[in-house]
């Protein structure tokens, strides 16, 4: 690990010009990430940032870190491979509500129960942005879109509740409508020594619903702190999470009071314990000598 120098937000900003629509919430998210990374202070080359596919998933390209804009829904498995390959890296993962909870939905529970030290940021705009406005798993019941012209007939996914049910150890929600809060929350998530999840209400100005847009969000946002929420109580967090889709609670829903060791620490342990049993690689086939 390099010694910590003073990094600034701009050090994490790449030359690639974002092609998001003017006003897209994701602009705010990437800004918050620049800030959080500057505060954490790891040099860009010690950071890996993985995403899937979607408007939101373009985000690694707008940073100076090692980015991986992979395929739709598979950011988490790729990120876990990176982390295990080199546990020293700071690994960020990001994507959209569709990327994370539709096509990628099968990976979330397993990433969480393994509990590697990753930070997973969902830009939840309740719509498919990149493919131009189809129903997303977090779209509300009844929503009319190009794939639900007569209204959606399904209950939406509740990302917060799902993640809490999976045993998520750090679960928060933010919005670019509160940039300072969002940056701080992401910083906290990064510093949390285990899998941390941040759901960001990041509006799609082009295909999103009016009431998701930043100015309306500001009216609906309630900070958990202001409610005196106890972030150490999972069941309480689940109760608060039930309001998803209705109220926008921001802040930390749950933070494991005494974080358990992350997966990679067990791995290292095992490697250290077993290192002594290694033979020289050139003699690996000796293991196939019949027991004389």
């Amino acid at each position, binding site marked *: 690990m390099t010694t910590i120098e003073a990094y600034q937000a701009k050090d994490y900003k790449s030359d*690639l010009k974002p092609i998001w629509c003017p006003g897209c919430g994701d602009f705010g998210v990437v800004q918050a990430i620049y800030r959080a990374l500057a505060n954490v202070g790891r*040099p*860009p*080359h*010690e*950071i*890996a940032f*993985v995403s899937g*596919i979607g408007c939101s998933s373009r985000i*690694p*390209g707008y940073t*100076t*870190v*090692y*980015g*991986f*804009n*992979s*395929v739709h829904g*598979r950011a*988490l*498995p*790729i*990120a*876990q*491979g*990176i*982390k*295990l*390959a*080199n546990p*020293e*890296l700071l690994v960020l993962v990001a994507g959209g509500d569709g990327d994370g909870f539709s096509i990628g939905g*099968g*990976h979330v*529970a*397993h990433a969480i129960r393994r509990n590697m030290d990753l930070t997973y940021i969902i830009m939840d705009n309740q719509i498919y942005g990149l493919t131009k406005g189809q129903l997303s798993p977090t779209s509300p019941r009844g929503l009319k879109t190009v794939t639900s012209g007569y209204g959606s007939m399904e209950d939406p996914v509740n990302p917060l509740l799902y993640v809490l049910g999976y045993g998520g150890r750090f679960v928060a929600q933010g919005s670019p409508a509160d940039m300072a809060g969002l940056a701080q929350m992401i910083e906290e998530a990064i510093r949390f020594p285990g899998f941390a999840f941040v759901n960001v209400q990041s509006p799609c100005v082009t295909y999103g619903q009016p009431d998701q847009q930043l100015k309306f969000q500001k009216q609906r946002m309630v900070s958990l702190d202001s409610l005196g929420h106890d972030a150490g109580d999972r069941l309480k967090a689940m109760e608060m999470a039930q309001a998803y889709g209705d109220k926008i609670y921001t802040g930390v829903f749950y933070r494991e009071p005494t974080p358990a060791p992350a997966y990679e620490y067990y*791995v290292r342990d*095992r*490697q250290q*314990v*077993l*290192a*002594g*049993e*290694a033979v020289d*690689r*050139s*003699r*690996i*086939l000796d*293991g*196939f*000598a*019949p*027991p*004389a």
Partner: protein
Amino acid sequence: MLTDLSIGMAGSGGDGIVSAGDSLMTALAIEGYFAMLTKSFGPQIRGGESSFRLRVATTPVRCPGGALDVAVALNWDDFLKFGAELPVTDRTVVLYEAASKVAPDALPLKGVTPRAAVAVPIEQMAREIAGTEKGKNTIVLGLVAGYFGLAQAAILAGLKKRFGKKGEDVLVRNERAFQAGVEYAQAHPIPSLEPMAPPAARTPRLLTDGNDMTGAAAIFAGCTFFGGYPITPSTEIMQYLTREIWKYGGTVLQCEDEIAGIGACVGASFAGKKVMTATSGPGMSLKTEILGLASIAELPLVAVNVQRGGPSTGIPTKSEQSDLFQAAFSAHGDVVRPVLAPTSVADTFGTVVEAFNMAEQYQTPVIVLSDQEIGQRKEAFERIDTSKFQLVDRLRPGDADLEPYIRFRDTETGVSPLSHPGMERGNYLASGIEHNEHGAPTANGAVHARMNEKRLRKLDPLALRRDLFETYGPADAPIALVAWGSLAGVVVEARDMADAEGLAVKVLVPKLLYPVAEEVYREFFASVRAGLVVEQSHQGQLYRVLRMFVDVPRGLKPFARSGSNPFSPDEVLARVREIAGQFRADREPVGQAG
């Protein structure tokens, strides 16, 4: 004295068939014999029928062989279930359970009169001597050892290891049971039965199966990350690595599915490690999308497919060679990725090491097409000199490459230096989206064409890899056989038999299946007028793939059959004789070659 002996045995779950086979195999390997052991089971997880066939020889064993020399039936019902897997002919000696009350001249073998049939009271002997029916397999070991003078000391040593922990009493009973088997054989000699010749040298052989060998080769090659999901018949690869890889600073991640398995590999490769995943057909199908990602992101990755019967879930426990089309062509878009196939357990070592080297050298996924036969059969084979194998690591950027770093620089070879997170100034954006040399996304047709060309051009040197092809027989032979994977040994043995009959036949065994090394085939085919591409698939997939790139001789035809149907050298030979006969009828010279 015999130099080559095939033994087959079948019974039901509790009969200890498998442990009899394993014990015998181990003893033979210790004594210095070469051997091959294949097991077969009914559909039940527990309690169904099971069998093995074991071939032992004083020289390396190339394939399971054809008809059995000795067949042991602990139970006729079970024995018959294995049909073509335990072929009995007039050269077979049949030993069977006397309690079955079948007369030696009325064996339930349609139309076959074996060389000899001996009803042995195996069960009774086991009960009386070993004190339990479980001793049946020890009796059989004694019979085999007795009839063929085979590896008695090593078998006894094995019994000691196996039963020693269970107490003196158990051990002694088993030793006695073994002895009783030996004595029974001596007391009931079979006319003109020859004993087995001693091994050429008393050096113990290596002994393992293709799946464990794959794991070991990966560790040798420097693999430190395995991501995968269990699936028959590949799971033992993951199981081996789960035991071993940690010792070498590596990790196995058992993932939630095959997609996550290869996804984690792509991540670990991006982070700079040598990586592998292993699966079988259905898992390969699921990995298709991310294999394409690895191709366009130019990340090294080894994916092993231990082929089983397809399509779909198909026949999970039986061997087939029907995933070649998939290995070569499953990706959407213009992708070429190398496909390698090992021809035996021993050969799996070099093939897997080669796969890692290729993956690293060309920053590409490489597919290893093993098959159930190789993956799960055991071979006793000559020690491998690992110092012969060189290891390749990916081209990493030097200082000059880093100012500034251009990840996908279109170099002369098409290979661009590859950095990894943690490397200063090497930062870049990897992506599945088409990108320019810098890694920036693009929809530009000219750039796209150039990048496609780069990604394919970098594999051009593979066309020159003559070392990945084995040839046998006279170079100017007019008849040719082509075979790959587990069928290579069958076909090479058939060629030897043809040779012994004075037929000039040559064999080509490609270990690099794709891309098709056109020149190698052209040269090989130059002398060829007729022949067969022998494959265990319904469609004859290699034959078709060759035609895509090479003008194959008109007389070269597919000899292809679905999996779960074993091939024997005899039947290949029979086809060769037919071809040669046709030649003669056409008055063409056949036996010309030197």
